[in-house]
Structure formats: structure tokens, C-alpha cells
């Protein structure tokens, strides 16, 4: 009797000592040479065990970013600051970073690092910069212009980019229109028949990574019917391109007889698509209604809110609530975060405007679990409160708006903000 009580007690004591010493080691590691979360986690609300620090604040519109294993951060700015469109920072051991330089006098959004080159886009072109063994740009003034002459209107003008493992670059070309109406965003303005804009916009184009001066003639329209994509990533697990579409606006303001303000705030979905060459996601002829779980004919093209669209258009992999503006997509392949995050998708929702007069939504980073390259289970808000308070988020007056995502070599998750140019680093520190 005595013996059987003593064994569990001893066992738990041993477990306790083991856990305690392990905790001690991990703490000293954090204090010694690793990122230290800010006392307030940089203002973010995170799941238990996660912490965040503000790596830097650039005072510029920070869009997408990449982080090298050597602790350099390349950030693409929407508009050049002091003639620099790409800002370079270097991290110190506590995770805070200082600006060490910059180059590339053009605004834009896309930036990606692959096989010894840094790729970056303006709103019409894509450049690449050769890197040395330390992932530093060898000659910032002499990039190779690999893609040129892409159309850019006054809306949906940014060109995000990603590479596959076969030497191809994928570039989104957003369309300068909401729903291809005769009068853009006009009251009861019908859709233009066939929507001729689709020939050179509203899709993903594929180009070769190492050929110079490619344009529409040399590229392949990989997928069409995508109004605007900002967040995109290559899924390494099943070797496939995934993109987040910004769904259409103005269902109520253009079609007040069909859609009330509430419906117009919720619908259409912001969709995650898994793309194959030749896919058509249906813009402007349809939108995805995540409440009915159906592809619905757009009102500009004869829709009545119920009529279902042609089944030739692809279905989304995941459908999120409307207007939240997904600006960053990242498949997590790191080892720092708990197992459930492995190979899942993080999505940075920049935050809505077209939900007014209903409360705005977004301004957070979401996690969507994946299994075997397919979404599995429900998404959840991962990092929240970029806005500062729930009231600021509801009013659309956010202090910070998440935009780009990147993974550090240690498995940290980086998030940019394009209001004040904050760069966040989210770490997991529970063992």
C-alpha cells in the first residue's frame, strides 16, 4: 500500500524537476541570444504560449517582406521613402532590428527570396537581384528586369509574386474595376459583355525566373477570373499555388434593390483558391456566397442573389467573411510553433472598409489548419488587436493594419503593418 503511493509521488516529483529545469534552460536561451517578446507583446493578442515583439517601425507603408537566415530583413514599401523602395534591416540578438540601408527607387508590394536571388516588383515590373552567400544583394543598383509592361490601373495595381520549384515566377495582375461594369461602381450599371479586361488583367500570370524583359507575349495566363490577389504562396507539401482573392465590393450601393447593407457587408466571401493551370475563378460573372455555400451569378450579369453560376468556375478551398482584405498568405513550414501549425496557412487580413455602415472587420492574422495539402478544420484568429482597440477596428480607424507575412529561419512569424510600418515578430516560447 505504502509503496504504491510513494511511486506516483516520486514520479511526479521527477517530472516536476525535469520540467522546471527545462523551462529554466529555455528562458535563459531567450535572455541569452534569442528574440525577447515585448512586455505587452507589441500590443497583440495571441494564443497562449506565444509572444510578440516589435522588431522595428519604419514610418512607411511596409507591404511584403522576407527574412534571411543571417538576420537581414528586406521590406517592400508601397511608395519609396527617400528614394528607397526596399528597406534593409539587420536584427540584433534580442530580435530588435536597425535599418542598415535600402535600394530600388520604386513603390510596390511583392518581394520574394528564392535560390540565391531576391525578387521584387513595382506596379508594372518585376526585378531580381543576385545575392551573395550571406543573402546580401551584390549590386542593388543593377537588378535584372525580368518582367515589364504589366497593366496597372488606379485600383488593384499591386503585383505580388511567388516562385515555384521549377524556375517559374507567378505574378498577380489585379483588374482596375470592381465588377466590370459599364460605369465602375455605378448605381445599377450593367456588366460589360464578356468583360474584355480579362485578357490582360484579373488573373495570375506565369513567367520564367531567369529570362529578361518578359511581358504578356512571353508569359502564360496561368489562372483567370481573379479580381485581385495580394496574398499568395507556394504550398511546398503538394507543390501548388494558393492565392487569396479580394472579393468584389458595392453589392448594396450598386444594387440596393437586391442587397441590403447587412448582406452587402457579409457577402461575398474572401476566397482562398488552390490553383491549377487554366483555372477560372469566375470574376466578374460570379461571386462566392459563403452563407449559401454557392457560386452566385453577379447582379451585373443577370444575377438575382440566388441564381447559381456555371459549374465550370472553380470552388474556393476556404471561404472567409467578406471585405476583410487578405493581403498576406504564408504556409508555415517552421519547427518553432506547435505541431498543429505545421503546413497550415497564416493569412493577414488588412481589414475592411466596404462593410460600412456595419462594423468593419479584419485587422488580424488568421490560421487555417491544413492536412496533406488541403484545408482541414476551421480557421481561427491567431494574432489580433493590430487596430489597437475593438472600437478602432469596428470604425475602420486601425492603428496598424497587417499586410505581409514571412517566416524566419528559426520558425518565427513576421508580420508587416502598412500604416506605421511596424514589423512584428511572433514567437512561441512555451515548452
Amino acid at each position, binding site marked *: 500500500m505504502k509503496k504504491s503511493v510513494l511511486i506516483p509521488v516520486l514520479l511526479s516529483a521527477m517530472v516536476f524537476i525535469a520540467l522546471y529545469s527545462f523551462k529554466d534552460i529555455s528562458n535563459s536561451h531567450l535572455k541569452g541570444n534569442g528574440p525577447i517578446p515585448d512586455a505587452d507583446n507589441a500590443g497583440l493578442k495571441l494564443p497562449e504560449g506565444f509572444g510578440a515583439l516589435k522588431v522595428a517601425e519604419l514610418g512607411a507603408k511596409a507591404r511584403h517582406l522576407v527574412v534571411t537566415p543571417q538576420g537581414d530583413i528586406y521590406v517592400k514599401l*508601397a*511608395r519609396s521613402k527617400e528614394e528607397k523602395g526596399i528597406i534593409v534591416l539587420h536584427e540584433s540578438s534580442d530580435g530588435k532590428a536597425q535599418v542598415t540601408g535600402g535600394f530600388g527607387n520604386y513603390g510596390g508590394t511583392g518581394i520574394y527570396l528564392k535560390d540565391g536571388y531576391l525578387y521584387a516588383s513595382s506596379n508594372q515590373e518585376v526585378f531580381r537581384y543576385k545575392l551573395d552567400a550571406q543573402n546580401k544583394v551584390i549590386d542593388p543598383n543593377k537588378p535584372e528586369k525580368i518582367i515589364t509592361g504589366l497593366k496597372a490601373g*488606379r*485600383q488593384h*495595381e499591386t503585383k505580388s509574386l511567388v516562385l515555384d520549384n521549377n524556375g517559374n515566377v507567378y505574378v498577380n495582375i489585379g483588374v482596375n474595376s*470592381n465588377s466590370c461594369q459599364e*460605369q*465602375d*461602381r*455605378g*448605381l445599377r*450599371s450593367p456588366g460589360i459583355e464578356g468583360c474584355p479586361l480579362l485578357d490582360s488583367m484579373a488573373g495570375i500570370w506565369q513567367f520564367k525566373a531567369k529570362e529578361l524583359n518578359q511581358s504578356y507575349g512571353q508569359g502564360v495566363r496561368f489562372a483567370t477570373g481573379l479580381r485581385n490577389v495580394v496574398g499568395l504562396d507556394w504550398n511546398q507539401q503538394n507543390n501548388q499555388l494558393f492565392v487569396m482573392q479580394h472579393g468584389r465590393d*458595392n453589392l*448594396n*450601393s450598386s444594387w440596393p434593390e437586391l442587397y441590403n447593407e447587412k448582406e452587402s457587408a457579409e457577402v461575398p466571401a474572401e476566397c482562398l483558391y488552390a490553383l491549377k493551370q487554366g483555372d477560372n475563378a469566375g470574376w466578374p460573372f460570379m461571386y462566392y456566397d459563403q452563407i449559401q455555400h454557392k457560386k452566385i451569378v453577379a447582379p451585373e450579369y443577370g444575377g438575382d442573389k440566388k441564381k447559381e453560376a456555371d459549374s465550370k468556375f472553380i470552388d474556393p478551398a476556404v471561404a472567409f467573411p467578406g471585405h476583410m482584405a487578405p493581403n498576406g498568405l504564408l504556409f508555415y513550414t517552421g519547427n518553432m510553433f506547435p505541431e498543429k501549425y505545421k503546413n497550415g496557412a497564416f493569412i493577414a487580413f488588412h481589414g475592411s*472598409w*466596404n462593410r*460600412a*455602415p456595419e462594423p468593419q472587420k479584419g485587422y488580424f492574422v488568421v490560421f487555417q489548419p491544413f492536412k496533406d495539402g488541403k484545408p482541414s478544420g476551421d480557421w481561427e484568429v491567431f494574432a489580433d488587436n493590430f487596430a489597437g482597440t475593438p472600437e478602432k477596428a469596428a*470604425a*475602420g*480607424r486601425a492603428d496598424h*493594419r497587417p499586410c505581409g507575412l514571412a517566416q524566419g529561419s528559426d520558425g518565427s512569424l513576421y508580420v508587416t503593418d502598412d*500604416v506605421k510600418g511596424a514589423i512584428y515578430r511572433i514567437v512561441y516560447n512555451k515548452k
Partner: protein
Amino acid sequence: MILTIGGIKLNAQTKGKTKKTVQTDVVSASVLANGQKVYNQYCLSCHMADGGGVQNMNPPLIKTTYVLGDKTRLIKIALNGLAEEIEIDGEVYTNVMPSHGFLKDQEIADVLTFVRNSFGNKASAIKASEVKAIRAEKK
């Protein structure tokens, strides 16, 4: 000094003519109420309830020369829409504004008067006759 002001005030209250001039500068509550109704239906979804617009997309209506300055330019924006680059305080706004020419002259006058006297703005009213004249000019 106080006496003089009191005297003028008295004059304004007693003399019908002076009173009328004072009244045209003050925007009536019914014009503002009607203007707000139009604003909520056609403007709020882009320019927001606080008139602050949307970063990078829809310009703010708070203390900008577009709103407070030249009435003709403002009336033309409402009638014709706007599809050119707008820069306010170093920020660029890119969204397209569709024409609101389907609104009646009085509705445009009231909503513009509302905007010019809301969100911290203070500027003279716009009359339906001014809208009518500019609409006619366009043709």
C-alpha cells in the same frame, strides 16, 4: 463695446432685412437632415460615417480644399464622379468615384451642404440653383 454689440444685435432682431441676410449664412436643420439622409445612402459606404475616408482608397472629406474650396469643382465631382489621382496631405487615394448625377439638384445641394458643415467643416451652403447651372453647363 458691449453696448455697441448689443445695439447691433437689437438692430438685427428688429430690422427684417438684416435678419434675412444673417439667416442665409446659417444652414437650416432641415437641409442638414436631408443632406445627411443622402450622405448615409450614397456616400457613407466609401467616405465612412466620420467622413474620414479609407486609407489609400477613398479620400477624406475633413477640412480638405476639395470640400471647403471651389464650389464648382465640388459640384462637378458629385455630378460626374472622379477617376483621377487625388493627393491630400501627402496621401494618395486611388478608388474610382462613380457619377452621382442621378441625384436631384436639391439632393446634391443638400448633401454637399451637409458635408461642408459636418466632420468639423464649416463652409457656406450650396444651393440647388448652383447645381442646376453646372449640370446645364455640362450638356
